[in-house]
């Protein structure tokens, strides 16, 4: 009896509570979780153009660390920096550089001097005017000997940055660098009038970065509650026009399961990075829509070429032949991606399909392996050579469901040609430490690269990057090296593309990796969100133009 009384009390109490709570939020008509039901019925006539107002709650499984583009290294921080700051150049949906705070950028004949004309009348969030001093200040930081952030390499080619007049800045390079324009000039600009007296050695840990960042971007920083959320509000004087949304709340959730539950409950309105395996579930939730497209990344099976097993190009080609990538995309990923042949996304201007391809062909794989001297001499079903079995482990990181499944599928598929591939799943940080310099403790691995909008394979495939850099598969081809070095000097996009066409041919032929697939990316958003444009790299592309239809 008592129990029953107690539970009734609890239920009625919560009912009263929830009525009270809905009453509180009910008058916020722009709250997307309230609107889906009466979406576009009575107010259709008025709802022709963009409407001002509304709060968008964005979910993220990563927590930000610091809001200073020269010191942050994680995606969450750069998401929020994108709301607060702005840059001289940005990129459109085809990744072409576009002018943002710069009016124009002139490049000298020799490609060593860049002159940026700045737009006039741009305001910082505190009302000060944006000028050439801010640009010079920002770009001088990474060149300062006291700079202790991790972004130095992006400014390596830059020799000096000087103010010509209040709205003109001149950059001098010590050598030609194709990535200077699209990459270095797209860094966010910091306010000189606030930070000029801070010693560069202390800038990375200055409280500006976490407590009061000021930018020229579409949203002003309001509050950061550690472990909970970061809130920003529309900046009325934004030079591209005030954003339609009033506030953005970047909410931190511990994992994807919590994220999906919160999307369903309406506690989160927008989420990027929802895995393809969950997308069908999310689509069934009321009031949400999903926008998908090819992401700017690829997933690969990499071979440790320090290991004798993988030194022969024929062997690597044979393994690629033995892997049914179409089946991986269609069954493991539910068709949510595209088979890859080169380390470049089809979205890039430099993409080249005209490369040697190694389609799924078990017989071809077997004959290539036989040519390389591998045969099953003891009849146990596993190939061997000089008394050594063709057996190795395939490592991948924990927590990525698709990759975890792929290593198991690889085991099955490679067994068909007499290769034993044993799956091994390792926690992320430990995995990275094991595979990279100076350990290289793996045989083969499944991993992905997220690509820059500007294609450059130097860091990953150049011989000089083997011992310390990201060429942890120890791939080396002097011819490819030469081409990658030369490409760095090419400023013309068509010539660059032609140079890379050759590089991709070589990489495809050598198969340092088996390029597995290009995954799709999915973004969940309120069904009444308008003005959203898909950008493969930027989840929040042109967010100042987003609006909620009432």
């Amino acid at each position, binding site marked *: 009896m008592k129990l029953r009384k107690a539970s009734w009390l609890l239920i009625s109490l919560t009912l009263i509570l929830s009525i009270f709570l809905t009453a509180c*939020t009910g008058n916020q008509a722009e709250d997307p979780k309230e609107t889906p039901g009466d979406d576009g019925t009575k107010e259709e006539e008025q709802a022709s153009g963009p409407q001002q107002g509304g709060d968008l709650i964005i979910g993220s499984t990563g*927590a930000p660390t610091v809001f200073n583009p020269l010191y942050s290294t994680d995606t969450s921080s750069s998401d929020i920096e994108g709301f607060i700051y702005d840059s001289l150049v940005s990129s459109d949906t085809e990744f072409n550089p576009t002018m943002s705070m710069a009016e124009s950028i002139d490049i000298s004949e020799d490609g060593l001097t860049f002159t940026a004309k700045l737009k006039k009348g741009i305001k910082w969030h505190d009302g000060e005017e944006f000028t050439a001093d801010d640009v010079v200040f920002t770009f001088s930081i990474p060149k300062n000997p006291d700079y*202790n952030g991790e*972004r130095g390499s992006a400014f390596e080619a830059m020799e000096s940055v000087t103010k010509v007049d209040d709205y003109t800045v001149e950059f001098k390079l010590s050598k030609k660098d194709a990535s200077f324009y699209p990459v270095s000039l797209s860094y966010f600009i910091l306010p000189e009038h606030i930070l000029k007296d801070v010693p560069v050695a202390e800038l990375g*840990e200055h409280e500006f970065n976490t407590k009061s960042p000021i930018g020229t971007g579409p949203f002003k920083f309001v509050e950061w509650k550690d472990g909970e959320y970061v809130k920003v509000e529309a900046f009325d004087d934004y030079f591209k026009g005030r954003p339609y949304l009033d506030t953005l709340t970047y909410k931190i959730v511990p994992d994807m399961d*919590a994220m999906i539950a919160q999307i369903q409950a309406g506690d989160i309105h927008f989420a990027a990075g929802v895995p393809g395996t969950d997308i069908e579930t999310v689509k069934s939730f009321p009031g949400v829509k999903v926008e998908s497209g090819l992401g700017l990344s690829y997933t690969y099976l990499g071979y440790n070429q320090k290991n004798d097993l993988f030194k022969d190009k024929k062997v690597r080609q044979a393994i690629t032949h033995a892997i049914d990538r179409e089946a991986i995309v269609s069954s493991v990923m539910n068709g949510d991606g595209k088979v890859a042949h080169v380390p470049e996304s089809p979205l890039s201007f430099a993409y080249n399909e005209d490369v040697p391809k190694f389609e799924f062909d078990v017989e071809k794989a077997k004959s290539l392996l036989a040519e390389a001297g591998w045969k099953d001499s003891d009849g146990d079903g596993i190939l061997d050579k000089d008394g050594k079995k063709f057996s190795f482990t395939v490592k991948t990181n924990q927590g990525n469901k698709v990759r975890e499944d792929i290593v198991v599928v690889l085991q099955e598929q490679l067994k068909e040609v007499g290769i034993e591939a044993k799956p091994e799943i390792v926690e992320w940080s430990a995995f990275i430490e094991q595979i990279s310099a100076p350990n290289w403790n793996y045989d083969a691995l499944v991993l992905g690269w997220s690509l820059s909008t500007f294609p450059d394979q130097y860091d990953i495939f150049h011989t000089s990057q083997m011992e310390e850099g990201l060429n942890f598969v120890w791939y080396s081809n002097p011819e490819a090296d030469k081409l990658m070095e030369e490409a760095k000097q090419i400023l013309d996009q068509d010539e660059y593309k032609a140079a890379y066409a050759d590089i991709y041919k070589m990489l495809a032929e050598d198969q340092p990796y088996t390029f597995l697939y290009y995954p799709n990316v999915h973004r969940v958003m309120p069904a009444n969100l308008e003005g959203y444009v898909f950008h493969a790299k930027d989840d929040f592309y042109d967010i100042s133009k987003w609006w909620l239809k009432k």
Partner: protein
Amino acid sequence: MLSYIIRRILMAIPLLLGITIVSFAIMKLAPGDPASLMMDPTISPEDKARFMERYGLNDPIHIQYLKWLGAMLQGDFGTSLIRKGVPVIEMIMNRMPNTILLMVVSTLLAMLISIPFGVISATRPYSKLDYTVTVTSFLGVATPNFFLGLILIMVFAVQNNLFPTGGVATLNAPFSLWDRIHHLIMPAFVLAAADMAGLTRYTRSSMMEVIKQDYMRTARAKGFKENKVIYKHGLRNGLIPVITIFGLMIPSFIGGAVIVEKIFTWPGIGLLFVDSAFQRDYPVLMGLTVISAVFVVIGNLIADILYAIFDPRIEY
């Protein structure tokens, strides 16, 4: 008594030191480091190496430990490696009120529910009610925190929208006490559930022991009403051992909070612990280790002192 307490506190010092040494060693010997998380082609290996050097992460383990210990003894827990420049103590203190709130509320909840249940089943042993309470408490012990939490979220937050899915308050809403309570109910209940079961069983057996005592019979013989006998004479004595186990429950609360906070997105020190472990944020991990170790030691100390106060048979 006082000398006993002082002795116990002095004994806690080597214990705490031992805990920090073991934790530090395990943490450093585990694979991975904060720089390896920066796997980004645009960050050069030199920059990563500089990061490791700057925070002294390349020094031998014992040097790193002694440096850390020296600073810690002067009250300096260092700054986070990931949240650049933010003092560890500030990060922990930001989160601590949330965890303490959760612990206090769930302890009260556990007490309010389990003590009456324990007494009721003790007074009517082997009745239907007793069996129901017994079965329910075993279910409570057997159901893992995370499972119960997920079920509650599924049923009450996602399907019926009675409770929020997580967090401490509704976003973009003005502060309201009801809202806070509303957010607190489910995580506090889940954290309390496991302890409720144990506490009920503990109260039951302790009360059954007490009920058989001569003084209870004497009280009844004097003509007191049964309720008065049970609740005035019995409960006072029966609760002595129960009160002491609260001190011993503190470690289990900290452990439980890690899971419950993660499931309910409750921004307390448990969630901070999980995040810092994945990011290899060593200073934060060590700060949290020291603080939870201190909690555990204090909890044990309180348990022993309470025992000494309530049970005059124990001499020190």
